[in-house]
């Protein structure tokens, strides 16, 4: 699993490649808290290359969402594949984590 972050002026992108499971969840949490601590409170999680997500991945997203919101920002997801969206719907998290077609659209085009 590969996690990369890209800090941009209006938001930061965390991209996950591979399976988003318990083995990966701590990395996402840490990446999010580090970004928020540094003042980057608008986070987009790019799921375009995420092949799989389970409840551990979901938990990490919710945790990161809370960190962002407590700091006055927000966390959104982008480009989630169909199987990831299925899991979000099963858990009602599709209402909390709205999927945007692409990372650059998550916080509105500038």
């Amino acid at each position, binding site marked *: 699993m590969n996690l990369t972050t890209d800090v941009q002026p209006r938001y930061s992108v965390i991209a996950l490649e591979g*399976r988003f*499971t*318990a*083995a990966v969840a701590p990395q996402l949490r840490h990446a999010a808290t580090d970004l928020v601590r540094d003042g980057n409170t608008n986070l987009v999680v790019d799921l375009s290359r995420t092949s*799989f997500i*389970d*409840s*551990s991945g*979901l*938990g990490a997203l*919710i*945790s990161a969402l*809370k960190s962002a919101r407590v700091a006055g920002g927000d966390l959104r997801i982008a480009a989630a594949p169909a*199987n990831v969206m*299925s*899991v979000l719907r*099963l*858990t*009602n*998290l599709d*209402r*909390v984590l709205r999927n945007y077609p692409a990372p650059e659209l998550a916080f509105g085009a500038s």
Partner: protein
Amino acid sequence: MPVEPAGTVVVEGRDSLAFVAEVLDAFEQLGSSSEFGADEDRDMFALALSEILTNVVQHSHCASAFKLRVELAVSSTAFKATVVDDADPAVVDWERAVMPDTSSESGRGLALAKTVLDELEHSTTPAGNVWRLVRRL
């Protein structure tokens, strides 16, 4: 009509998240090499596998490392998995295995597995625990 087994795979290892990944890899190979089941069946069974195995690895009580043996089977009628471990007998609170609210950071695993499987059973033996997972096609 007789059930045609398309294949079985056994994965053995010790309790670790790396082992969970190995099992998911094995299922991915097994599922993609068979013509049975739709993508959704494969995705949802893989999800259930990950939930149960992660649960076993993270929540089992055992003073030291313990062993796991996972048998995966694909046939024209179902995806099946049997997970056997030699950890202490687990106590599964099925009544609490319901989907928590959206603000919850944990506790969804068993509820998700139950939702996507047709059968999910846990039993204990003198040697450890056995989980049976079935998704009918």
